């Protein structure tokens, strides 16, 4: 468990799921995406506001999809090296 800024806690992902996701297991990757999807959407909206964009006009879902594709294809394997 880890503490968020608002004082609440969220469950971390299970070790086994993380390891399977790093190996490219699609169901584990699906769990990772589901776990962090709300976080991604929230960060997209706050980043859009920081860039002076109207969050209602920003295609949040499309950007989230691009972010996940890049994460899965390029980044997830990097964690395996760091581990």
């Amino acid at each position, binding site marked *: *468990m880890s503490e968020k800024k608002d004082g609440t806690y969220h469950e971390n*992902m299970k070790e086994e799921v*993380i390891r399977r996701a790093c190996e490219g297991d699609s169901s584990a990757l699906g769990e990772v995406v589901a776990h962090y999807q709300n976080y991604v959407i929230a*960060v*997209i909206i706050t980043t*859009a506001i920081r860039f002076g964009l109207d969050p209602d006009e920003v295609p949040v879902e499309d950007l989230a999809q*691009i*972010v996940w594709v890049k994460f899965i294809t390029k980044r997830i394997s990097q*964690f395996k090296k*760091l581990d």
Partner: protein
Amino acid sequence: MKSEESFEPCYTEGSLPERFDSWITQVLENLIYTEVRSYKRRKMRLPEFSTENIDEIASYDPNKDEELKEILLGNTPLILKNSKLAAALPKISPRKQQVIEGTIVLGIPVKIVAETMGLSEHIVSNYKYLGLNELRAIMEGNEDE
């Protein structure tokens, strides 16, 4: 009374899930920053476009002063605004005309144009490149080059 062990957190600091959580949030934030920034750049580059603009571009007004030239490139009739281009196109070799007709005017992939003409893709690409260069030279008035 429960034993002391049962009150321990599931994951201690520095465990794999903790490290993964802090790593993934940082990576996602960086990716999102890049994507939102490029989205903003794309949006700024796109001009404001209304349906009125589209009508203006799409419609041809016969009363306008622009003189249109009609030529036949291979088997495709073309109506061109640019008189220099209309004059230059028939001057290049028939093979280059065919390649430009297929790949640029009709938008057919090079592979299919090559199969239709019985040539290799490489040769078709060469004809296209040379044809465009020749056209450019003729239009700029350097026909001898």
